[in-house]
């Protein structure tokens, strides 16, 4: 981690240094933005969710019991907002992974077509999962979080996270087999 540790930035923010909070925004905005996209929101929705999450985090910073774990606490806010936003709107017909550029624009056109197809398959596969399983898969496989970190962030047991991952794996297995068969 570059720059001051989270604890220092949280404490400086609490004592009135708003710019310290700006450093925390810079530190976590990319990871949380990707998370919101992976949860099925488009670029504009993800941006709104993040802005709301950061402002809430700032306003309620006194509730962050352990400033060393600010990232987990911030994630929990974002995750809750994603769920709330997800409940508000019906299932999207198009999803974020199509709406944003995820591939290297400079790549070979053939590679880009393949990458686009892969993204489409990932999107379709993830869309079939219930929200809690999708959340677990996104965090474990795409964001590299451990089961314990996910459990703490979502305030559920380790066993619950593992069960969600196992069910998600079983469901995704069908999609994976189809995708690989089509790829020859």
């Amino acid at each position, binding site marked *: 981690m570059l720059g001051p540790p989270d604890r220092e930035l949280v404490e400086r923010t609490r004592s009135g240094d708003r710019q310290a909070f700006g450093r925390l925004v810079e530190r976590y*905005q990319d990871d949380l933005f990707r998370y919101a996209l992976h949860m099925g929101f488009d670029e504009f929705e993800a941006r709104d969710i993040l802005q709301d999450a950061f402002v809430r985090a700032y306003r309620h910073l*006194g509730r962050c019991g352990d400033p060393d774990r600010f990232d987990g606490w911030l994630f929990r806010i974002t995750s809750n907002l994603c769920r709330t936003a997800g409940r508000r709107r019906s299932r999207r017909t198009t999803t974020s992974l199509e709406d944003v550029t*995820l591939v290297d624009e400079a790549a070979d056109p053939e590679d880009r077509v393949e990458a686009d197809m892969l*993204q489409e398959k990932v999107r379709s596969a993830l869309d079939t999962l219930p929200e809690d399983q999708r959340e677990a898969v996104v965090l474990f496989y795409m964001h590299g979080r451990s089961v314990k970190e996910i459990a703490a962030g979502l305030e559920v047991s380790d066993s619950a996270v593992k069960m969600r*991952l196992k069910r998600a794996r079983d469901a995704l297995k069908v999609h*994976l087999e189809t995708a690989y068969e089509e790829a020859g």
Partner: protein
Amino acid sequence: MNRDERTPLERYLDGETDLDGLPPADRHDEARLVEFLAAQRRSGVRAPDGLRTDVMREIEALPRNRWQDLLSWFLRPRTLHWNPAAAAALAVAALAVLMALPDGDPAAPPRAGEAVADGVPAVMAGRDADAGALVVTRFVFVAPEASTVTLTGDWVGWDAEEIPLRELRGSGVWTVDVPVPAGVHEYAFVVDGSEWRPDPLAGSQTDDGFGRTNSVLLVSNAEV
């Protein structure tokens, strides 16, 4: 000694083994899954330009927390230059202020000019209140099972220990009178140091974004 009854997949998910620790069938599926999803992890997508600026602009527009500002002012290191005559004058002034202060019993009834509300969202101030002034507000919470109850809210930076309530003669009714800056505030009660609860008497509640509910309080300095 307890036997480890976890499956190989559970041990893998717990991070204690790698793919080689899985049975061949699981290993094959897992390798596919990792490969399938890894394309997204490497996507390099970044947050939109200007997000940080927009967040900071919204934060700058928030009303300042007077308690926090005051605390920061007191805690900020500074150099003092002493002048004996000025110090003596300051001491006399401080003594005069102390002598003029009322009794500090938080459970005492509010004085004339202080209006209160029993946990309801609309709170009226005394007639001398200025815009943004502190308004003495009474909070009441019923919790017969509680050993301690504290009040917390945005105006104290959600400090869960700063404002204890006092139980009225073992009745299970807890109360406190506390100065609150005029404006709209979110608040909650903390029972036994850990359980956050909204005020059931409040007229308005709001989702706090943490999966909990806060109560909403409007502290007005309007004439009663």
